[in-house]
């Protein structure tokens, strides 16, 4: 499978293409079109061990609330925006329109002050779903895609933590 990844680290921001192929027991890796001697094993739900030519790295991964991946390797941190091949269809105005069921996550700890959509509603990309208040500021949480509100997991007045799932849009 081919991934287009924008990696941001202390050295700046660059776009790369990573190709992972699984042939039976063997996984082949290519980076920017060049095959490399690398192996990767998921050792825990959020940790991946990577070997590149005998050099060992351990990378901890989590998804931040805006959807980018946060990667940590010892003291070094990176963030990665992944353009999934399965989501390459349907780009609009150069931006990526996400595909499939989307989880709407709370971007910060706070309180749900208003719910703007109901289960079953048809929503447009960018339409407000809920309003979360944090530190005296009201933030509208918008739908990342056009679709249908499949589930609402919070009620008005409920406290939520950063990263908590608020709703699903299918």
């Amino acid at each position: 499978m081919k991934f287009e990844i924008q990696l941001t680290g202390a050295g700046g921001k660059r776009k790369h293409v990573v190709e992972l192929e699984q042939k039976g027991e063997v996984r082949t890796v290519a980076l920017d079109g060049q095959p490399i001697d690398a192996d990767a094993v998921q050792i825990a739900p959020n940790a991946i061990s990577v070997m590149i030519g005998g050099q060992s790295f351990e990378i901890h991964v989590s998804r931040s609330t805006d959807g980018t991946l946060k990667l940590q390797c010892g003291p070094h941190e990176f963030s990665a925006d992944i353009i999934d091949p399965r989501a390459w269809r349907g780009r609009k105005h150069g931006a990526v329109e996400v595909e499939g069921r989307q989880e709407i996550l709370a971007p910060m700890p706070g309180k749900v002050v208003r719910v703007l959509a109901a289960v079953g509603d048809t929503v447009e990309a960018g339409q407000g779903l809920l309003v979360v208040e944090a530190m005296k500021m009201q933030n509208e949480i918008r739908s990342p895609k056009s679709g249908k509100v499949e589930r609402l997991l919070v009620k008005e007045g409920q406290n939520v933590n950063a990263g908590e799932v608020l709703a699903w849009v299918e």
Partner: protein
Amino acid sequence: MFRKILIANRGEIAVRILRACRELGIKSVSVYSEVDRASLHVRLADEAYLIGPAASRESYLRIDRLMDVAKKSGCDALHPGYGFLAENAALPRACADAGITFIGPSAEAMEAMGSKTAGKQLARRAEVPTVPGTSDPIENPEEAQALAQSMGYPVLLKAIAGGGGKGMRVVPNDAAFASAWRDAASEALNAFGDQRVFLEKYLVGPRHIEIQILADAHGRCVSLGERECSVQRRHQKVVEEAPSPVVTPELRRKMGDAAVRLGRAGGYVNAGTVEFLVDANLNFYFLEVNTRLQVEHPVTEQVTGLDLVKLQIAIAAGHRLPFAWETITPRGHAMEVRLYAEDPDNNFFPSPGKIISRHAPTGPGIRLDEGVYEGWTVPMDYDPLLGKLIAWGNSREETIARLRRALDEYTIMGIRTNVSLFRRILTDPEFLRGEIHTKWLDELLARPHPPVPPPRAGTEQAALIAAALWHSAQSNTSTPGSTEVQATPSRWKMEGRRQQMDHMP
């Protein structure tokens, strides 16, 4: 010995105390607020009881509810930990009324030593050196200014009711005195409703060095040596170590003697800490007494081999201290860093939230006193201390190397932590030489960040491969992006169950 101890606290210190109870074969009872149901101190306790909503004043600060739990669960002793009610004399009084032993000093000793002014008066009586100044508030600004002139500038104006740096003014010279006096008094009035201030000599670049004392109910009071706590950010300790890089055996004996004299003069029983400021010429001046266990007690434990919480319990149970303090000399070196859920890149703003993944360091010379676990949500209602990472070794150098190694192993994702701050401190040349004072860290943080060494070759490639693999693994699960969402029950399973139910008579 006690049968059952109520732990009137939460977080890492509650876990620390209940571990000591378990080792002693004593049952432990935890209390928790509504947001702490899933906290580690509740999970590990023998018994746990809800005492109210998240707000501390409705839960952890409610003496009446603590007493109800203690009686209901049949506790014969109570340990207050640190913070919350640990230095509130109303708690030992309530315990005494309820017939429960308070693991700490008496209410009277707490009052005689705990407040800044009372402690200072006691120190003068016990001939413990204090920073030159007044122990009583001064009403008249002219009188105060004359005193400042005789003492020599710089001087410090301090609110009687003060704390946390509020109502404090450094006066560099005589010309600045009048306006500094006005500012300090009005700030004290606004912050504490009490405008009285007192005056003391301002020490330039002092170290904060404290002596741990233990006193039993049979008249024995001992010193367990010093802890150096000069690395502070805005008056909050950040890194602590024992022994201090500047304390000689002779100074240790002199400071220990002074602390023990003070403890005796105050009729102190149990564990306490006498804090001193130490100037460049190694003169020491009494600062204040903490009438409780300190956050940084593990560094003393590591270099003395003693368990302070167990000794606190033994003393409260009326046991004699089993050693004389002449026998206690520090062995090796220990250092502690306080791990906080706060963002050092964003002005140390608290960063509560869910811990998505966590890897704890282990190995030689490493101790981790924590109150957290993977999957737990750090509540926003309390102090964001996650725990303490403590290293010990044969020398200060080995200890620092171990601490750095452990910090590299420590990974926590989902929340921001102050780990990067320690990487900076533990590689700073001044820190490595032990040239620290109470303003050192604030000065360090005011300087621009030194360039972070670049990652070794291959790290970026490894990160890219990890990102791709993790992303594809996540996409293959039924719910993209997260593994936490409860999946809807399988319809096959539901149908199977329904069919089985149909066959039941």
